[in-house]
């Protein structure tokens, strides 16, 4: 089974405000894959190692900035 398939449902305003942890991590993983072709864990490791500290404020650099805003999804623990 595709572990990322859990969030492929249709979103509605009736669903809870907060994603369950596994779905939150899957969301983050898909975005890091889509924008940087990295897993969520790989991105977090590089972020915490300071690899993105000196990124230019360009469209490419801003992909990382967008992912940085989503980090709380990637850090959810079950």
């Amino acid at each position, binding site marked *: 089974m595709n572990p990322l398939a859990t969030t492929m449902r249709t979103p509605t*305003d009736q669903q809870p*405000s*907060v994603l369950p942890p596994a779905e939150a991590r899957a969301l983050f993983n898909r*975005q890091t894959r889509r924008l940087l072709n990295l897993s969520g864990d790989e991105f977090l490791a590089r972020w915490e190692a300071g690899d993105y500290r000196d990124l230019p404020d360009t469209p490419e650099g801003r992909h990382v*900035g967008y992912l940085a*805003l*989503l980090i709380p*999804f990637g850090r*959810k623990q079950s």
Partner: protein
Amino acid sequence: MAGSSPEESVDAFVAPLRRTLGCIVRGTAIASGAELNADNAVTLFPEGRDGGDPARLRTHDGEGEILFRFAHQYRVVSLPAEADCGPYRVRRTFYRYDVLDWNGGEIVVFHWEPAGRGPVRAPHLHVPAAAPIVLPQQSTSGIAHRKTSLNRLHLPTGPLLVEDIVEFVIRELAVVPLVADWEAVLVENRDAIDRGRTW
């Protein structure tokens, strides 16, 4: 955006976001958590796409298309002095609203990164689609022909709400609203935010 529990405060934060986004997006907003004093995020979950993906917005009566994505970071804080209206509140700590062309190229992006890694900490916007210009100078100036890259500027803005961006894309970029009373929705949500004094 107050609540009697952290979870309730996040529900009170997300519900108006969903109503505002519903003016232009088929989908919803989804948050990462409600832990007290922890960094959390909320982003868009467009219908038929993945959470965090940009949403496709129809423009010009359906003839055109742009993309929109957003993310906020927030913290749930406890304010016992305001316990009469719910001691827990959501405080936004970062935001970005990106308006992209149909192919994902940036048109205009609004950022606020008060604890970010860049030098500009105040709310600002970028216009990546803008072309460089040559600012007029005295002919004897050493920079008479130097180009200024408008696309690289950080243009200051005040703090912006998602309501401001929804109004901007409808009025200025001809996005087709999905609800007839979108203006009333924005007024109602702005009033609620003013009452909560969240900025």
